[in-house]
């Protein structure tokens, strides 16, 4: 057939409905070749750099600075200087800057969402509909508290702490940045923030938002780097460390800070129980299970990674779950129809693969829906394990990937006992149409958040944090203000 004939042949119509690619354009982005460190409102050159890539195809995106101990020292010093004036500003003035940041973030949301998906691998529909709107909402929310602290904590004379060192993870780079920076600024602190090694780009773009908002120099400083940069920040002259990440690193930080004056909040791992009772609305419950574990490829500290199903409804739930998993669309994070994106890094992929192997060896039954994974980049198919023993590694250890372990229970008491039988305690889910049972369960579950008939739902007004090895301190809501304040007047002179 000639080209002309082809053009006249009026049948571009496929026989079955395969959605055409619908990629979000990257033309909106300007990524620098090489980034420095954002210290004292200026870009400072660094000695060493490393390459940050896109996990969707391993293509390099930019060179990012590896901050040394001296760089971290400079950043903390800049924050210390800025703190003197920033903390003296009237609350209403601070909130003015924060409202500006919130509005600029909302205006530039698409740019940030595309960059977030490119650098982190999460589906664009999530960065567009969840990460960025929530990040902006956090700034809006905490901006409102800045001038009302005395009313929020009456008769306690709330005062800022000083310089806050903040270390954030790679699973929700912008959202975690907002969770950390917004309450710190509202309280009158200055900040040195270290983004995760694999996802530094949105934090670096955020520096441009700070410039646009005219935030005074040094109030927020961003230093990129690997774990050594984080360690340097922990050891530096800060007044507080706020860390979100693995329990292992969290424990190391706590050991390091023991005996110092530095305050600490930790938001660590989880192995959440998602508990399904036989009177649940089954189709919506299956949606909730899917959202609980496959949202953001399961890179969620509060992911519902242990599914407890009441035995009387086990078969239909599992059948429907498998059916639903087969409709998940895995692929290019920038495609608007993608449900499950790329695994964030090779390191994480290796860890997921190792634990899945362990699950198979322990005799659990594995199911993965038929799907074609892209050849380049880091990918892992949505996975569910059935016949999982409570003692299995996949039921105990945090996998931080799209892997669900299913267990069963018979009575509400048994569900509570099994759900609480873990060193973690970040979140839990309860699925039942019975209101009284929801309350009964919530009272007994040892988890910072208990979701009822929903999962992975966040709001700036709602506190979030863990029990046991999931950490301490709360983020979000008025509870999230408290760790950034001191109520003892004598302590404030240190600033």
């Amino acid at each position: 057939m000639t080209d002309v004939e082809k053009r006249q042949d009026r049948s571009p119509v496929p026989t079955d409905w395969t959605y055409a690619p619908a990629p979000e354009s990257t033309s909106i982005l300007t990524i620098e070749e090489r980034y420095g460190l954002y210290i004292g409102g200026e870009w400072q050159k660094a000695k060493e750099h490393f390459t940050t890539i896109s996990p969707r195809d391993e293509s390099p995106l930019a060179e990012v600075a590896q901050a040394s101990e001296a760089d971290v020292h400079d950043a903390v010093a800049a924050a210390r200087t800025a703190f003197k004036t920033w903390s003296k500003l009237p609350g209403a003035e601070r909130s003015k800057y924060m409202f500006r940041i919130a509005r600029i973030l909302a205006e530039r949301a698409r740019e940030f969402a595309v960059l977030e998906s490119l650098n982190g691998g999460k589906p664009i529909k999530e960065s567009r509909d969840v990460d960025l709107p929530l990040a902006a909402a956090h700034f809006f929310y905490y901006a409102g508290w800045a001038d009302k602290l005395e009313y929020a904590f009456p008769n306690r004379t709330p005062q800022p702490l000083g310089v806050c060192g903040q270390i954030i993870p790679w699973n929700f780079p912008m959202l975690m940045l907002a969770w950390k920076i917004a309450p710190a600024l509202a309280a009158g602190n200055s900040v040195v923030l270290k983004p995760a090694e694999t996802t530094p780009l949105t934090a670096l773009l955020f520096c441009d938002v700070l410039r646009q908002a005219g935030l005074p120099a040094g109030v927020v400083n961003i230093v990129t780097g690997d774990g050594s940069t984080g360690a340097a920040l922990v050891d530096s002259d800060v007044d507080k460390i706020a860390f979100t990440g693995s329990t292992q690193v969290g424990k190391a930080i706590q050991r390091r800070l023991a005996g110092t004056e530095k305050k600490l909040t930790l938001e660590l791992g989880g192995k959440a129980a998602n508990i399904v009772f036989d009177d649940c609305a089954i189709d919506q419950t299956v949606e909730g299970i899917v959202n609980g574990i496959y949202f953001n490829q399961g890179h969620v500290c509060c992911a519902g990674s242990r599914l407890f199903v009441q035995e009387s409804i086990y078969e239909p739930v599992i059948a429907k779950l498998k059916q639903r998993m087969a409709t998940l669309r895995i692929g290019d994070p920038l495609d608007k129809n993608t449900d499950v994106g790329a695994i964030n890094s090779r390191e994480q992929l290796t860890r997921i693969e190792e634990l899945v192997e362990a699950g198979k060896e322990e005799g659990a039954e594995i199911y993965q829906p038929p799907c074609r994974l892209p050849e380049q980049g880091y990918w892992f198919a949505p996975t569910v394990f059935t016949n999982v023993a409570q003692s299995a590694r996949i039921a105990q250890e945090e996998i931080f990937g799209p892997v669900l372990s299913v267990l069963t229970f018979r009575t509400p008491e048994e569900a509570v006992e099994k759900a609480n039988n873990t060193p973690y305690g970040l979140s839990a889910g309860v699925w039942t149409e019975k209101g009284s049972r929801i309350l009964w369960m919530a009272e007994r579950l040892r988890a910072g958040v208990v979701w009822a008939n929903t999962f992975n739902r966040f709001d700036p007004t709602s506190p979030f944090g863990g029990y046991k090895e999931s950490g301490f301190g709360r983020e979000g809501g008025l509870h999230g203000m408290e760790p950034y304040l001191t109520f003892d007047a004598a302590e404030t002179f240190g600033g």
Partner: protein
Amino acid sequence: MAQAPVLPRGFELPLKQRLPRIGSVDQVAVEARAGELAKRSIKKESKIWALELALRCCDLTTLEGSDTPGKVAALCSKAIRPDPTDPNIPSVAAVCVYPNLIPTAKERLAGTGVKIASVATYFPSGQAPLDVKLRDVEDAVAMGADEIDMVIDRGAFLSGRYATVYEEIVRIKEACGEAHLKVILEVTELGTYDNVRRASLLAMAAGGDFIKTSTGKLPGAATLPVQLVMLEAIRDVHEETGRKVGMKPAGGIRTAKNAIQYLVQVHETLGPDWLTPDLYRIGASSLVNDILMQLRTQRTGFYSGKDYFTND
């Protein structure tokens, strides 16, 4: 003391561990899921495919007191060849009219693949004795209707007399003979998703070939979450019995974009088997022209004005 209604077959307690049980629907979650699916981005070839499918699934409808043979004749021409300038555009599935206009439609549609659907059973209220409804159906079938769109007795349903509703559907299905039966739930009047699910299972258990959302006579009519609830009920019946029941949203679907959202939901809930006029219909009138306009835009690359498409 009021007597508990006798539960019909297929509506008993789930003694087996298998589906369908009547179950319940979580309003917040079902609306969230419908909202998620509505965001699918359908482009290029897949959009053309969807637009043509939507057209092939249309029940082109006129149900007015002012309907005349002239009006219905014009509608039939539109149904056979929706876009006279492009013979490649497929015909719609059916025209949907009141019984009195069946003869006109039959004459016009003879020899084409377009079916005749007629509303019956004291449409749209259904508030008449059963023998009147049965007679209504028998007449429509005798006049040549291929498909009957019946309304359920919402008065009976809402007062908990499920057996009455069920018996009526069974009798009407018998009266239909060879004609296909679509059961209109009139979801706006049912009030809750739980009721929509219950009525859907009831209609399927009683033998309906299709379940349909609305008469089109009330505001609100079809919505994406309502269809999702009905599709999930259809899926449960299929899983349990292997029987494939059709779905027809009707009322309020006016744009091609909206129609594609409905199709995406069917595709991702029931799968590709249901993407055929045999199992999926859209009750609409003004939708057709919007689809034609979008199809022409896809082919030519620019929008034509409304005046380039006929109003029938």
